[in-house]
């Protein structure tokens, strides 16, 4: 327990220049993230006095999240409120330049069609006579017709738990089925800590060791966001191992690259669905840091 924490305290933190861009629903159902590290991580290993090794096995797990791609739909109250606000804004607003132009053009047209029209009375309007504001509006309408917005809700993808395109309005967490001490359990991808690396590097290794290729992630910081302590049953306890401690690190999926073949051991689950897969005690700890806003 003491070893990696002290080492983390002596690691100079990574400066990151990260840009998170939220574009409209593109072909990849994932937000564009780019990071360039300005100064790298430098490890300083202090000389330690010999200490008996800790009885806890240390592991690091990664909580990989796919952020929501579109904003969530409004509830009925919110929709009514939004309509009311829009109506109020419309009633209080002034006429815009484009609308003024429309009115002027309509008025000029009606004057032209009157019998006693004298074109010399008009001021010179130049090309406003050629392209009326109404024509502009019509051309814009035509362009709008040709635009096809993407689907907000894709019912087929929603059912498929391994698809990245499911539930675009909610954040999804990656859950993997891994072998832990003889049983196959559903949990956040984890791996054991080794000497000479930071816990964050362990978490990165856990992510890279997953069968799914091309999962590029941006880790949100060097500090873990949660911890889970598991004590082995009394029968399995020995002198050197009392249990395991798992430290969780948060990461954001940057872009998934080529769509990986769906593997049965990886899932993208919403927070409400996590309960079905994770064990209750584990779920209680994970619940505290997984945000579903």
């Amino acid at each position: 327990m003491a070893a990696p924490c002290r080492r983390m305290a002596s690691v100079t933190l990574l400066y990151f220049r990260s840009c998170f861009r939220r574009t409209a629903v593109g072909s990849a159902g994932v937000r564009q993230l780019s990071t360039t590290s300005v100064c790298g991580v430098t490890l300083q290993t202090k000389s330690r006095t010999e200490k008996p090794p800790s009885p806890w096995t240390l592991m690091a797990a990664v909580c990989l999240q796919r952020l929501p791609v579109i904003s969530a739909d409004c509830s009925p109250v919110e929709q009514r409120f939004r309509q009311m606000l829009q109506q109020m804004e419309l009633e209080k607003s002034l006429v815009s330049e484009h609308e003024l132009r429309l009115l002027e053009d309509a008025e000029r047209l009606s004057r032209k069609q009157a019998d006693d029209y004298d074109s010399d009375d008009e001021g010179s309007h130049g090309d406003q006579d050629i392209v009326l504001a109404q024509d502009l509006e019509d051309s814009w309408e035509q362009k709008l017709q040709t635009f096809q917005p993407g689907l907000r809700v894709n019912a087929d993808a929603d059912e498929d738990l391994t698809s990245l395109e499911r539930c675009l309005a909610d954040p999804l967490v990656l859950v993997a089925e891994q072998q832990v001490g003889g049983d196959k359990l559903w949990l956040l991808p984890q791996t054991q800590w080794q000497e000479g690396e930071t816990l964050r590097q362990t978490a990165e290794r856990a992510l890279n060791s997953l069968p799914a290729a091309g999962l590029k992630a941006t880790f949100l910081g060097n500090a873990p966001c949660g911890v889970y302590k598991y004590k082995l049953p009394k029968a399995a306890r020995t002198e050197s191992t009392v249990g395991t401690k798992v430290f969780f690190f948060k990461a954001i999926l940057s872009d998934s690259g080529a769509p990986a073949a769906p593997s049965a051991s990886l899932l993208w689950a919403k927070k409400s669905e996590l309960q079905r897969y994770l064990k209750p005690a584990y779920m209680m700890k994970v619940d505290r840091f997984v945000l579903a806003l």
Partner: protein
Amino acid sequence: MSAVLRKVCVTRQASALSQALAACWAARPLQHPVWAPVNTRHYRSMPTHGIGRWRHLVPKEKTKKKKDKIQMKEILGETDTAYGSLNVTVSGYDMTLVEHYSQYIHNLCHRLAIKVAESYILPTKTTEVMLMQEKGTKMFVDAVLKTHQRVVQLSSLDATACPVLLDVLLQNQPEGVELCVSQHTEAHFQARFKGRPELEGLIAQLTY
């Protein structure tokens, strides 16, 4: 004779008494609240002495001379447990979204006890989208897009608070708004000022 004497005595006493009273009144004029002028202090032994004083409670403002150059706020470096000065830049085409999101970030930092050094606006960049005409070679202006930028400068961010803050910001990021977290340097500060070409020319002449 005695009666006259007595009368004289009485009147003398009466006059003496009235004089004494007058003297007394002159020394202690009655302070009627309406008639007393506003800037006289109450007597120092009165319990209400100094009531209404407030200027000594307000911290003294340093008078800013116009010649003073704007000083840069200290840029904190990183420590073992905290990041140094960071710039959170929010940019986008829709001004209401950008402004509301930057205000949300600022309020969230107050809530999480993260110190905000400054919060400023960078100048708007106007982009003209030119489209080629269908028949002909002339380009015409199709749309004018304005990119608005707001910056929230954090003085120091704890390493434990960083993933929490970033996760919340990213989950609440509105569509069409770009979020950028970068290190704050002096170059960022100097970029906010307008260049002064004449001054630079004169300085170059002096040093040449």
